[in-house]
C-alpha cells in the first residue's frame, strides 16, 4: 500500500472538461470558479482513487466530495442507466446533518433538475436517503422499498443497516464511501467505523472508493491509513487556504493575580460584554457544561435583561430539539452570543460567527483551530478569535497554543488500536449477517488499520467470550455466537440476536448519573442542580462539601437515584471531584511549553532581554510578556524553573509531607507517572498515598516520603506491571470497565423489550466489576478496560519514554526543599485532580481506625 501527498492540484480546465455539460452549466451559474479544495479532490474522486482531503473549515469539502459523484450520477440519469442500488454512502458523526446535506447535495441536485427541465432534457430521479438514529420507522420502511442512490447516515446507523438482511443487499455494488469529520473519529467511535467500512467493502462486489474529509489535523498519513485500512492506497490533499488567523490573548483586569478575586469576575464579564457589543455574533467556548451555564447566568447578573432572548447555550447534555433551536436561531442571526462547551466544535453549519472567544485553554492546537474556525466559516472570511485566560498557567499554555496556531504547528492525534469491546460488538454483527469462516473473518478485521496488528490470541479470546466459554455452566448467559472448532465456522446464536444487536449498537457509553436535588434552604427545595456520578456518591458521606457547577453544596442523604444537598454553604470543600474528566493537554504542546520555559530560563536574569524574547516568541503584547516574565521570575527566585529537560521535585511539609513533581508532559502522561510514583511511595510505607494531578505536574502526599527510594522504585521496564497494580482498585478502572461491558454487549441497554435506565446499569458497575473478577482477572473485557485506561485515557507509551530519558540522564532531576508551595506548584495543589493510591487493605484500615477510636474515647467513655 502507498500513502502519498498530492503535490499539485488539477487545473480548472481539466476539471471543467471532466464535468458533463449540464453539471458544468449549473456549476458556473452558481460559482465563479472551482475552489482550491475542488481542484484537488473532484477529479481524483472521479478517477476512482481513494483520497483524504484535509482543509480548514469553510473549505467547501462536502461539495468537493459530492461534485464528482453528482456528475457521474447525473450522467447515468440522463442516459436512463441509473440502477436501483446505493451508489454512494456518506457518513458523518453528526446526527443533525440535514441542513448541510441540503446545502451540499439536495439543493445542487434540484437546481440541476430545474436546469434540465428548462433545457427539455429527460432525466431519471437521483434519490437521496437520510438515515440516522432519529429516522422514523415509517421513513425507514419507505427507504427499504424505494432504495436511495446516495445514502446519508451516521456510523451507528450504517452498522445497523449493514446487518439488516434485505437492506444490506443494496450495498452489493457500492461505488463511493464518504467519511466526513474524520478528525472527530480518533476514538472508539472511529475504531468502530473502521470495522464497519471493512464490512461494507467485504459486502460489496466492487471495491468502493473511499473519500475522507478532515479539518486541520496531524499526522495526515495516520488519518489516511485509518480511512483506507492496512492494504489500500490513498492520496492526501492537504489543502491550505491562505486564511490569515486573527488571534489574540488577554486576561481581564490589570494584573492576572487579581483575576481570581470577586472583582475580576466583574472585569471578566465587562470584557466579554465589550467584545460581544463590538461584534454581530460571538461564540464563546468553555470546556465544561457547567461553565457554559455559569457564564450565561453571570452575564445576565452583571447586565440584567441586556442579553435576554439574545443569548443561548449549546452543549451535549441539552436535548437534540433544544440544540436544534439554538442552531436555527444562530443561522437566522437571531442570537448575539452563544456559549458552548465542545458541542459546536464540529462542522455543523451555524451561519456566520464574527468572533470566537476561547475561555480557558482548549488544550490542543487542532482543537483551538477548529474552534476559531467557526468564525469565518465562509470561504474568504478569516477566522478570528481571542483567548481569555484566568490564571497564570493558562496564560503560558495559551501563549504557546497561539504561537503554534500562527506557525501552523498542529499537534498529533492517535487512533485507539485493537479495542476488544468494539471488536466483540462487530463480530456479533458480522455473525448475524452470515456464517463466517473464522480465518476469513480475522482477515477482514485485520484490514482495518485499527486492527492491523490484532493478535490471534486476543481475537480468539473474544470469540471465546462471545461463544460463552467463560461461563461453561451457564453458557446461555453469555453465548451470542456459536463457533465450531472443527469446521472453523462462526454464526449467531438465538432468535433475538438481530434485535439485541440493533437495539444495543454503539460505542458512546450511556453515562448515568445521580441527580443532585436541593433539600435546604426551603425556598429552593426540590430544584435539581445537576448530576454526579454514582461512584462519586459512594465516596461521600453526610456532611461532605463538594463543588458542582462552580457552587458548593453539602451532602445530606440519598434516596434512590437522587442525592439531597444543602445549598449556600460556606464550609471548605472536603471532597474533590474525582471524575471530572477534563480535556488533557496535548503532549506535543506540553513539550513546546517545556522548551519555552527553557528558553526563558536562560535569559531570566535580564528582564528587558527576556520580555522582548517572550514578546517575539509567542507573538504577544507587553502586558502579557510582563506577566509571563513575572511568573517565571518568581519561580526562579523561590525554587527553580522546571523545563523540557529538567524535572524539579519540591518537598515541603504541612500536616503531611508533600512532594511536588514538576513534570510538564500533560495530564495523560502525568496520570501514569503519578500513579507509578504514588504506588512506590505507598508500597514503601504500606500506607495509602494521596496524589494530585494536572497537566503541569503532580504531587504525592503522605506521612513521610523518601524521594530517592521512590524514584528508584519506578523503572521504565516495569511500568506496565506497576501501573496494572496501581489502578486495580481505582474507580476509574471500574467505570471504564462498565463502559467496555456496555460496548461489548455484556450489559444490554435494551433487552427483551425492557428499556433499562442507564441508572440501573450505573448502580451495578461495582457489582459487575466484582462479578467479572470472579470469572478471571484476565477476562478479555477487563483487559480492554485496562488498555483503555493505559492507552486512551492515559499515555503509557510517552510516560515510558520519559522514564527512559530520566534513566539515560537526558532529563535531569533537581530536588528542592521549600518552606511552602512554589508559585508553579500552587495551581497544582489547588486544582489538581485528586485520587488515592490504595495499598492498605480494608481490614487493616478498619483495625487501625478502631485503634484511633479507642484512644479517642478511652478517656470519655466510648461505651
Amino acid at each position, binding site marked *: 500500500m502507498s500513502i502519498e501527498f498530492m503535490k499539485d492540484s488539477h487545473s480548472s480546465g481539466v476539471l471543467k472538461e471532466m464535468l458533463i455539460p449540464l453539471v458544468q452549466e449549473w456549476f458556473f451559474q452558481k460559482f465563479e470558479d472551482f475552489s482550491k479544495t475542488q481542484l484537488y479532490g473532484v477529479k481524483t474522486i472521479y478517477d476512482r482513487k481513494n483520497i483524504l482531503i484535509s482543509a480548514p473549515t469553510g473549505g467547501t469539502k462536502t461539495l468537493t466530495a459530492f461534485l464528482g459523484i453528482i456528475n457521474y450520477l447525473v450522467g447515468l440519469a440522463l442516459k436512463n442507466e441509473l440502477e436501483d442500488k446505493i451508489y454512494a454512502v456518506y457518513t458523518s458523526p453528526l446526527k443533525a446533518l440535514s441542513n448541510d446535506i441540503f446545502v451540499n447535495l439536495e439543493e445542487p441536485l434540484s437546481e440541476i433538475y430545474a436546469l434540465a427541465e428548462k433545457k427539455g432534457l429527460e432525466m431519471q430521479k437521483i434519490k437521496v436517503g437520510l438515515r440516522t438514529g432519529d429516522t422514523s420507522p415509517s421513513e425507514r420502511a419507505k427507504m427499504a422499498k424505494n432504495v436511495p442512490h446516495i445514502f446519508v447516515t451516521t456510523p451507528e446507523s450504517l452498522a445497523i443497516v449493514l446487518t439488516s438482511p434485505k437492506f444490506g443487499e443494496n450495498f452489493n455494488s457500492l461505488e463511493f464511501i464518504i467519511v466526513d469529520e474524520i478528525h472527530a473519529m480518533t476514538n472508539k467511535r472511529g475504531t468502530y467505523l473502521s470495522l464497519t467500512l471493512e464490512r461494507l467493502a467485504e459486502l460489496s462486489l466492487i471495491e468502493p472508493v473511499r473519500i475522507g474529509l478532515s479539518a486541520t489535523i496531524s499526522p495526515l498519513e495516520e488519518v489516511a491509513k485509518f480511512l483506507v485500512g492496512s492494504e489500500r492506497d490513498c492520496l492526501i490533499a492537504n489543502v491550505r487556504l491562505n486564511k490569515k488567523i486573527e488571534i489574540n490573548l488577554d486576561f481581564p483586569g490589570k494584573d492576572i493575580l487579581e483575576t481570581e478575586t470577586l472583582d475580576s469576575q466583574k472585569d471578566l464579564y465587562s470584557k466579554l460584554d465589550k467584545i460581544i457589543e463590538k461584534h454581530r455574533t460571538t461564540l464563546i467556548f468553555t470546556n465544561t457544561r457547567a461553565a457554559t451555564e455559569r457564564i450565561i447566568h453571570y452575564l445576565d447578573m452583571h447586565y440584567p435583561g441586556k442579553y435576554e432572548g439574545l443569548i443561548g447555550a449549546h452543549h451535549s447534555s441539552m436535548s437534540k430539539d433544544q440544540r436544534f433551536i439554538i442552531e436555527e436561531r444562530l443561522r437566522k442571526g437571531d442570537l448575539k452570543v452563544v456559549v458552548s462547551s465542545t458541542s459546536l466544535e464540529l462542522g455543523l453549519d451555524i451561519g456566520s460567527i464574527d468572533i470566537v472567544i476561547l475561555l480557558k485553554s482548549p488544550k490542543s492546537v487542532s482543537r483551538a483551530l477548529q474552534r476559531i474556525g467557526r468564525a469565518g466559516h465562509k470561504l474568504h472570511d478569516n477566522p478570528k478569535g481571542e483567548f481569555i485566560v484566568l490564571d497564570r498557567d493558562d496564560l503560558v499554555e495559551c501563549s504557546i497554543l497561539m504561537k503554534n496556531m500562527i506557525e501552523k504547528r498542529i499537534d498529533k492525534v492517535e487512533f485507539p488500536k485493537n479495542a476488544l469491546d468494539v471488536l466483540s460488538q462487530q463480530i456479533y454483527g458480522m455473525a448475524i449477517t452470515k456464517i463466517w469462516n473464522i480465518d476469513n473473518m480475522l482477515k477482514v478485521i485485520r484490514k482495518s488499520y485499527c486492527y492491523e496488528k490484532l493478535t490471534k490470541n486476543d481475537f480468539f479470546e473474544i470469540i471465546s467470550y462471545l461463544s460463552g466459554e*467463560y*461461563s461453561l455452566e451457564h453458557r446461555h448467559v453469555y453465548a451470542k455466537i456459536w463457533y465450531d472448532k472443527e469446521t472453523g465456522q462462526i454464526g449467531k446464536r438465538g432468535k433475538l440476536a438481530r434485535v439485541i444487536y440493533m437495539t444495543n449498537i454503539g460505542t458512546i457509553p450511556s453515562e448515568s448519573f445521580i441527580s443532585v436535588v436541593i433539600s435546604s434552604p426551603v425556598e429552593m427545595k426540590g430544584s435539581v442542580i445537576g448530576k454526579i456520578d454514582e461512584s462519586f456518591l459512594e465516596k461521600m458521606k453526610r456532611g461532605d462539601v463538594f463543588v458542582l457547577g462552580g457552587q458548593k453544596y453539602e451532602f445530606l442523604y440519598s434516596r434512590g437515584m437522587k442525592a439531597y444537598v444543602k445549598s449556600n454553604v460556606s464550609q471548605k470543600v472536603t471532597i474533590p471531584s474525582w471524575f471530572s474528566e477534563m480535556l488533557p493537554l496535548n503532549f506535543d504542546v506540553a513539550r513546546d511549553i517545556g522548551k519555552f520555559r527553557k528558553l526563558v530560563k536562560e535569559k531570566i536574569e535580564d528582564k528587558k532581554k527576556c520580555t522582548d524574547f517572550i514578546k517575539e516568541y509567542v507573538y504577544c503584547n507587553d502586558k502579557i510578556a510582563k506577566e509571563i516574565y513575572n511568573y517565571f521570575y518568581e519561580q526562579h527566585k523561590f525554587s527553580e524553573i522546571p523545563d523540557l529537560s529538567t524535572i524539579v521535585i519540591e518537598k515541603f511539609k504541612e500536616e503531611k509531607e508533600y512532594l511536588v513533581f514538576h513534570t510538564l508532559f500533560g495530564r495523560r502522561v502525568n496520570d501514569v507517572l503519578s500513579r507509578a510514583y504514588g504506588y512506590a511511595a505507598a508500597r514503601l510505607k504500606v500506607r*495509602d498515598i494521596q496524589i494530585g494531578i494536572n497537566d503541569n505536574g503532580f504531587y504525592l502526599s503522605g506521612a513521610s516520603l523518601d524521594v530517592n527510594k521512590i524514584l528508584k522504585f519506578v523503572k521504565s521496564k516495569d511500568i506496565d506491571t506497576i501501573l496494572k497494580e496501581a489502578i486495580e482498585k481505582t474507580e476509574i478502572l471500574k467505570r471504564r470497565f462498565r463502559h467496555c461491558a456496555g460496548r461489548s454487549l455484556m450489559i444490554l441497554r435494551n433487552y427483551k423489550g425492557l428499556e433499562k435506565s442507564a441508572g440501573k446499569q450505573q448502580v451495578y458497575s461495582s*457489582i459487575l466489576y466484582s462479578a467479572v473478577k470472579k470469572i478471571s482477572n484476565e477476562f478479555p473485557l477487563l483487559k480492554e478496560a485496562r488498555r483503555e485506561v493505559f492507552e486512551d485515557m492515559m499515555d503509557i507509551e510517552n510516560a515510558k519514554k520519559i522514564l527512559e530519558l530520566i534513566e539515560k540522564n537526558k532529563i535531569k532531576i533537581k530536588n528542592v526543599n521549600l518552606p511552602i508551595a512554589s508559585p508553579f506548584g500552587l495551581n497544582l495543589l489547588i486544582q489538581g485532580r485528586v485520587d488515592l493510591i490504595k495499598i492498605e487493605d480494608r481490614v487493616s484500615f478498619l483495625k487501625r481506625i*478502631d485503634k484511633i477510636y479507642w484512644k479517642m474515647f478511652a478517656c470519655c467513655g466510648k*461505651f
Partner: protein
Amino acid sequence: MIKYIGKCLLVVENSEKILVIGDLHLGFEEVLNQSGILVGRKMFEEILFELSKIFEKVGKVNKIVLLGDVKHSFGKIVGQEWKEILDLIDYLNSKLNKNGALIIIKGNHDKILGPVVAKRDLEIHDYFIFGKYCFLHGHRGFEEIYDRKVKSWILGHGHPAVKISEGIKIEKYKCFLEGEFNKMKVVLVPSFFEYNQGSDPRENDLGYGFNFNLEKFNVKIVSDELTVLDFGKLENLK
C-alpha cells in the same frame, strides 16, 4: 446470650445454639441476567464457602434462623433460586444437631417462597419466638412480637453498613446495629449478601417498619469472616 460471628449471630438460649443468618438474596445474578446484565453465577458457591468457615468455628447447632429475603426476585421464582434454595436447605440441614430445626422467616422479597421450601417439608414464618428472643424480618410488625415474654428482637431487612473515612479515603463495612426500642433490646443484622456492603443509616432510610432511633444504636462493624469491632454509638461515628 448473643455472640457475633462475622456477619452472623450465635444466640444461646435454654442451652440451645441458634445460628442467625441475614438476608441472602439468592438468585440475584439471574435477575441481573434477565434484565440484560450478563454476569456469571458465582455467588452461591461463595456463600457456601463463607458458611463453611462459620460452621468450622461454631460446630453443629440446634437451630438455624434465616432472617428473610432468602431469595432476591419479587413475586416470582427464577430457575436459579429453586435450585439454590433447595441446595442451601440441604446444606444447612446437614449442619443441624439431631432434632435440630431450620427456621425460615418471610421477607418482603419472599412473596412466594412457600412452594419451594415445601419441597423439603418446611414452612415459612412471619416471625419466630424462642425463649426471650424474637426473630423477624423487620419490614413490618406483628401483634405477637410485643409479647411480655419477649425481651429481644433480632431483625434482618435493612442491610445496615457504615462508611468509615480518613482524609479522602472512604470504605464501607457491613455492621450490626444494637440498641433499644420499647424497652427491648434490638439487634439489626447486616445482609449476608456479598455483592455489596449495604446502606449507611446516616444517609439512607433503611426501611424498617419501626421507628428506631438509630443514632443511639451501637455500631459493631464486621471486620473479617469471624470477628466484629465495636465502634460505639452511631451518632459518635465520624
